[in-house]
């Protein structure tokens, strides 16, 4: 039921994530990070998801492009991540069925 490599990968992810959650709190308490680092950390989340989404869309086709467009529109209108995912997946599904 549990493979060693899978278990190690999950534990690695868990430790890395806990280090982020707790490390930030204790580090910022102990020392004040430079304004440059603080500004950089502010840009990291957006740039990271752009880095994931853009190559995936570039490698995709009509299904992915229309799905992404539907996701963006639904997200703008609703502000709810769940609605965005549902609308995008439904649009991708429609393209898949029609072809």
């Amino acid at each position, binding site marked *: 039921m549990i493979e060693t490599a899978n278990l190690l*990968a999950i534990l690695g992810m868990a430790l890395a*994530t806990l280090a982020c959650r707790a490390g930030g709190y204790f580090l910022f308490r102990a020392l004040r990070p430079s304004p440059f680092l603080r500004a950089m*950390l502010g840009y990291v989340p957006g740039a990271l998801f752009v880095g994931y989404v853009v190559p995936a869309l570039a490698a995709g086709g009509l299904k992915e492009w229309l799905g992404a467009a539907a996701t963006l529109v639904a997200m703008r209108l609703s502000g709810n991540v769940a609605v965005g995912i549902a609308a995008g997946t439904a649009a991708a599904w429609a393209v898949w069925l029609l072809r």
Partner: protein
Amino acid sequence: MRARHFTSAALARGARRSLAIALGLAPFGLVVGVLAAGKGLSLVETGLMSGLVFAGASQILALDLWTHPAPILAVTFAAFAVNLRMALMGPALAAWLEKLSGWRLWGNLFLLVDHGFALAIAEGRKGERDGGFLFGAGLVLWVAWLACSLLGHVLGTALRPPRGHPLFFAALAAFVSLLVPLWRGRHDALPWLAAAGVALPVARLAPHGAWHVVAAALAGGLVGAWRERRQGTA
């Protein structure tokens, strides 16, 4: 004294307030379960991952990279890179956390997630400072997350969607959705362009692993911070 910083009344209040958010989290959790089943993870492994990691975006990214045997270093690094944003949440909640210790502090740090953080920031503006509120909200989200990813695994195993099935597009849709609230305004345009410009060639040169994601995060962060410093000194 400590009880005033962490009351059971506030815990119940936080749990109630996060119920609606937990419902919104459900499709996200289902996607994680379906993806995990698609990559051949067992139900127990899926539960372990959701229970211990408890961070949806990093789990989806890691499952996308998952191979057999598991790429331990790549997914650990991916989790670190995706969840680095959480390092900024703890400091922002210092007023809630600094009077706590032991399991109350560590429990709250472990349960820290985007949705609970957003709720706490909103409630904090109304004067809420009780660590119990944070804990109650996080606990409900954690239980919902675990339940939905397990349910997703059961569904994924039953349906066995083939590769290229639009159900897997949900993972990409989740990240596209997350881009919308992350867009803070026009000052994000240049860093995002830099991220895309770096991600495309790196993804082509190194198609295995999360290097294009890491390179994009660093490029966007550096470009944004550099420009802020230049504008600050000019």
